[in-house]
């Protein structure tokens, strides 16, 4: 249940940034281990890639890519707020970040 004092764009931006950051941090070791199978040869990596063709894995992949885009865009928003001269643009930046994440998600989904 989201408390009333939290129902504003800045808080949502934070929530998405944190959730995506934690998800990506937890994913990263798995990603590296998967790529590391190439040490045992191309066939091993190929086996893994075939395994990842399953629908559930594909969906998870797509979610991660979208979260990566969201975390990037949210992060750029923070860098703008913290380092550039102050402007009343934090909500606009949040909207742009959301738009960017959606666009990347679509691009990735459609690229397959």
């Amino acid at each position, binding site marked *: 249940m989201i*408390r*009333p*004092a*939290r129902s*504003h764009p*800045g*808080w949502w*931006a*934070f929530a998405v*940034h*944190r959730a995506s950051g934690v998800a990506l941090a937890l994913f990263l070791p798995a990603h590296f281990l998967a790529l590391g199978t190439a040490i045992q040869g191309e066939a091993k990596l190929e086996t893994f890639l075939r395994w990842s063709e399953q629908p559930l894995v594909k969906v998870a992949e797509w979610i991660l890519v979208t979260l990566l885009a969201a975390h990037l865009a949210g992060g750029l928003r*923070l860098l703008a*707020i*913290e*380092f550039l001269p*102050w402007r009343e643009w*934090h909500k606009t930046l949040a909207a742009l970040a959301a738009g960017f994440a959606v666009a990347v998600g679509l691009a990735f989904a459609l690229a397959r």
Partner: protein
Amino acid sequence: MKLNVSVWRGGAEGRFEDFEVPRRGSQTVLDAVTYIQRHLDPTLSYRFACRVGMCGSCAMTVNGKPRWTCRTHVDKVATGGRLQVAPLANLPVVKDLVADMREFFDKWARSRGQFRPTATRNDEFARVRPDSPARREADAGVECIGCGVCYAACDVVKWNRDYLGPAALNRAWTLVNDERDGAKRERLDAVAGDAGCHACHTMMSCTEHCPKKLSPTRSIAGLKRATLALALGGEP
């Protein structure tokens, strides 16, 4: 027409108690609380002073949001004729609707939110241009009256008990920008780190809820830049 007002009774442990308050035109939440204390239950404890939106003493949690009760019209917040009033969040409860503001002001002091003069009565008046960039930055945050609403709204305060909080950091920023002040170095040291400006996640709940429309987020972003030189080992 009646208004159902649910009021926090007790200290940290307690419960919500319901009262029926007659609705009046232009009624504020403070009006409703005052009615309860005067006509229904004289043991209800609450704070107020000016009742016209100048002192910030009447800040409480109304339907989950920290607000000045004297400036909150019942019509605007009583969805379905119901109101829930509780003490400000993130502070210990003294009794009922009264929060203990000591830690709020202790943190103000810890962030070196006090002006340190550099001139004496024998010196000329300081000439500070109001349109200088530094003075503009200071002026943007200087109207804070220490009501505690931002502190109550901030989730970092909730999760990090050492966090100095938006008001204390905002005040520090106004002083960092005060060319007459002589404690800049110590102040930047005081506001840096895990308990200081670097703990802010730019959630902006402070800015969203400030009744004086200040932006502690803006001040804290300024402190982050100001402490950059400190972090990199140079002089601020």
